[in-house]
């Protein structure tokens, strides 16, 4: 590292008008040329506000203070100063997450990149055009001339993220701030974008990488700063911090990652659970509620053979085609066969667009397959009419990625659960027949009964969704990306809860996710889906340790791991 750092930040604090606690609290760090500093933390830890303050773009109502903020030895201007316009884009580039909305959806991406050149260079229009194509080519976008004319909505997730990066680096800034640049991307695409960022860093660009994902950090960042509640709680060489974390938040972040935690072992979560809300803050991660059917607390159910029971859910060479606007048809599912044994978890993993959602919708009877059979508990299910399906629906529950939108916004938690209890009908169970028991079972305090889902946290919403799914007394629950939009520690708690419930209620799970770590942690068996085809099925460890299919291998290779 050279003598003086490129960027020096001392005692940066950000207060918001109506908040007592500062969003950013006395944060200091340096970044040298050619170095990548990662700022890691969960949502609300203040990492994004920090990044924006470095560009003078803190959100409205923010009061920013610092004792030193210098770039290459020069002080950065006060917020709102005109001089910022010569710094933004030229000296500091910003790359946001989700280029679909971070690039103007009404303008061709080439124009967006051209803007940077127009603002910060003296190139002629013709030279700029050529430069735009060079940039698109440099970030690995094939056929730049075509892509430059397209809008962000017309590009795939990976391509538009690259285009956004091209705009960030167009004027050759000394520092790039990348705010969750790979969050919305599939693993294989994510790996390629991270490689691109790493190569920029190797070429001498300083970089600040804002992320919630420690695995991403270990891939590109030399140093890491961990933020929690507005403060930097730990900073150091990435490998050192990940190997021997000293601060509690760092330890918690690391422990909650499910990547290498085997099936059946609870993920470690901070003791203060959903602190103010959970009823049993001091009890073990998942409080055993007395209302659950008395259970033998063991991993028995994991090995417990399906023996007499037929498969909970079975798909037999199910195919589904969708017509496209262009008059062709897309083969969303091609002869998919899956078997979910009773009392077990089948993990279904694949990238976006692979056909996971179609499988979920067909399994739930929201859509009908073009061909093939769907069986629920050994009985015909897929070919039933909506009317015939209804009396059987209580045996199959579902939880979704976006819990909030799955609730009628006008209803309270209690109404949601009462409504769901109303359809149970079958007197198969003595417990979990009241909303109070349901709330206990998912570890939510009774005081939430009268709230509406809108006023709950993400984790609480997903718990209410689980309670609702349990209400009719199902034997099988379809979990469609249930933890994808949650912070890693919340995710760990929800996964632990699902695990616990499965043991006690002998549930079968069809667990759909794009996250290999979550899948490995939750599943007994795994099916890998790619472009509508199941490419590989097998016992979880088999697949993860000795994958046979090349696609599975490429997925595993791309999986960012926390390297310690």
């Amino acid at each position, binding site marked *: 590292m050279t003598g003086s750092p490129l960027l020096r930040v001392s005692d940066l604090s950000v207060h918001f008008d109506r908040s007592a606690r500062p969003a950013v609290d006395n944060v200091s760090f340096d970044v040298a040329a050619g170095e990548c500093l990662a700022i890691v933390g969960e949502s609300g830890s203040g990492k994004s506000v920090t990044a924006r303050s470095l560009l003078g*773009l803190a959100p409205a109502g923010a009061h920013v203070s610092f004792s030193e903020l210098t770039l290459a030895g020069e002080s950065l201007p006060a917020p709102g100063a005109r001089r*910022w316009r010569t710094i933004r884009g030229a000296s500091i580039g910003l790359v946001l997450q989700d280029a679909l*909305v971070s690039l103007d959806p009404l*303008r061709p991406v080439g124009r967006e990149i051209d803007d*940077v050149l127009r603002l910060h260079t003296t190139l002629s229009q013709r030279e700029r055009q050529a430069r735009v194509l060079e940039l698109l080519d440099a970030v690995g976008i094939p056929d730049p001339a075509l892509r430059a004319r397209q809008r962000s909505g*017309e590009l*795939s997730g990976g391509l538009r993220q690259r285009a956004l990066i091209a705009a960030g680096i167009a004027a050759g800034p000394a520092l790039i701030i990348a705010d969750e640049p790979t969050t919305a991307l599939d693993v294989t695409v994510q790996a390629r974008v991270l490689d691109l960022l790493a190569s920029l860093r190797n070429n001498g660009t300083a970089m600040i990488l804002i992320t919630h994902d420690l695995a991403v950090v270990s891939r590109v960042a030399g140093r890491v700063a961990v933020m929690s509640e507005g403060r930097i709680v730990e900073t150091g060489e990435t490998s050192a911090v990940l190997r021997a974390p000293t601060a509690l938040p760092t330890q918690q972040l690391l422990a909650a990652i499910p990547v290498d935690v085997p099936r059946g072992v609870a993920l470690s979560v901070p003791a203060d659970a959903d602190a103010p809300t959970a009823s049993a803050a001091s009890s073990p991660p998942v409080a055993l509620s007395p209302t659950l059917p008395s259970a033998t607390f063991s991993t028995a159910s994991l090995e417990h053979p399906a023996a007499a029971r037929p498969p909970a859910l079975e798909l037999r060479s199910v195919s589904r085609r969708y017509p*496209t606007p262009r008059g062709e048809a*897309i083969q969303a599912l091609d002869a998919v066969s899956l078997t979910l044994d009773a009392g077990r978890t089948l993990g279904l993993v694949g990238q976006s667009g692979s056909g996971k959602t179609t499988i979920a919708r067909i399994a739930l009877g929201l859509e009908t397959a073009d061909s093939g059979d769907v069986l629920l508990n050994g009985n015909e299910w897929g070919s039933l009419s909506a009317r015939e399906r209804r009396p059987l629906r209580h045996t199959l529950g579902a939880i979704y990625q976006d819990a909030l939108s799955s609730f009628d916004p006008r209803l309270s938690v209690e109404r949601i659960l009462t409504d769901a209890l109303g359809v149970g009908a079958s007197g198969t169970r003595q417990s979990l027949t009241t909303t109070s028991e349901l709330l206990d079972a998912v570890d939510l305090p009774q005081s939430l009964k009268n709230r509406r889902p809108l006023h709950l946290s993400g984790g609480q919403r997903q718990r209410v969704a689980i309670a609702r799914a349990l209400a009719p007394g199902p034997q099988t629950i379809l979990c469609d990306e249930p933890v994808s939009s949650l912070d890693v520690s919340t995710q760990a708690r929800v996964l632990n809860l699902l695990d616990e419930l499965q043991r006690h209620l002998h549930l079968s799970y069809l667990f759909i996710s794009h996250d290999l770590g979550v899948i490995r942690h939750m599943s007994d068996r795994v099916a890998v889906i790619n472009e509508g085809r199941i490419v590989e099925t097998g016992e979880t460890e088999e697949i993860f340790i000795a994958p046979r299919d090349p696609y599975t291998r490429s997925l595993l290779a791309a999986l960012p791991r926390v390297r310690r």
Partner: protein
Amino acid sequence: MTVSTDTPTTASVSTPATRLRSLGWIARRVGGGVFVLWAVATIIFFALRLIPGDPVDAILGGPGSQASAEAVAQIRADYGLDQPLIVQYFLAMGKLAVADFGTSYALKVAVAPYVLTQLWSTLVLTIASLVVAWLGALALTLATSGRSRVARALGSALELLAAAVPHFWLASLLIILLSNTLHWLPPISVPGPLGLVLPVLTLALPLTGFLGQVMRESLANAYEQPFVLSARARGESEWGVRLRHVLRHAALPGISLSGWAFGSLLSGAVVVETIFARPGLGRTLLSAVTIRDIPVVTAVALLSALTFIIVTIATDVVDRIVDPRVTEVAAR
């Protein structure tokens, strides 16, 4: 759900298939338009027969006419009014299908050329008003959005009041102020551009209020989008952000509303043409309905429906040009 790897999800490249789809879209719109015209003609035909009184009176110049019974019978036969209603209907539709609008009962002139000249006058008025309203709304929102609270509050208060003003009252106020007090402009419409000022202002101001309200809201929405942050982080100036990015997004709902706005301008034209004694469809319609001049009412109704249909299709086309996403979503 689409199967996609690292390839574009939708291509905007013009392929024969997309061109075919556009043709199909246009064909459907035209077909829909023809249906609407037929329905309008039918409704008007039967509605006008429901008006109490005898159409022959309208032909003879009002109920007070002293025509003999023979003369009345003669006219009835001449105009085909002695036929059963259903026969009259099919005869009328047959004539309309070949754009034969007949002769005005009251004016005794061919309806088509007469109404067309009136249409021209109304079109000049409404299109000028639409343009003025658009420019006014753009200027107002751009000038006051993203500024101080006071400027924003002032802007939205102006829009709110403008949108609540009845045309006829605004016309009266403008006459009091600009004609009677300041003597800048003639109180009634005279030929030439000067005579157009007051009518256009009258029609445009309330519309400015409406468009302004809608655009201000979508402008505020657009400002909160991440691409604005991206643009600022590139070093774009406030006006650069406004003109290059936000404006388009703000204009979208305004464009979609222009078809509707045009329809409401046609209604407003009735009032404005009456007040400023300006020739046009509106005034023609008002007097034709009052004296039951059936051929004229039919022609006016069909012409305004036709104009409305054309304007709606045109705004949809503009919408698709400004926002290519519309096409993709619509096709999905």
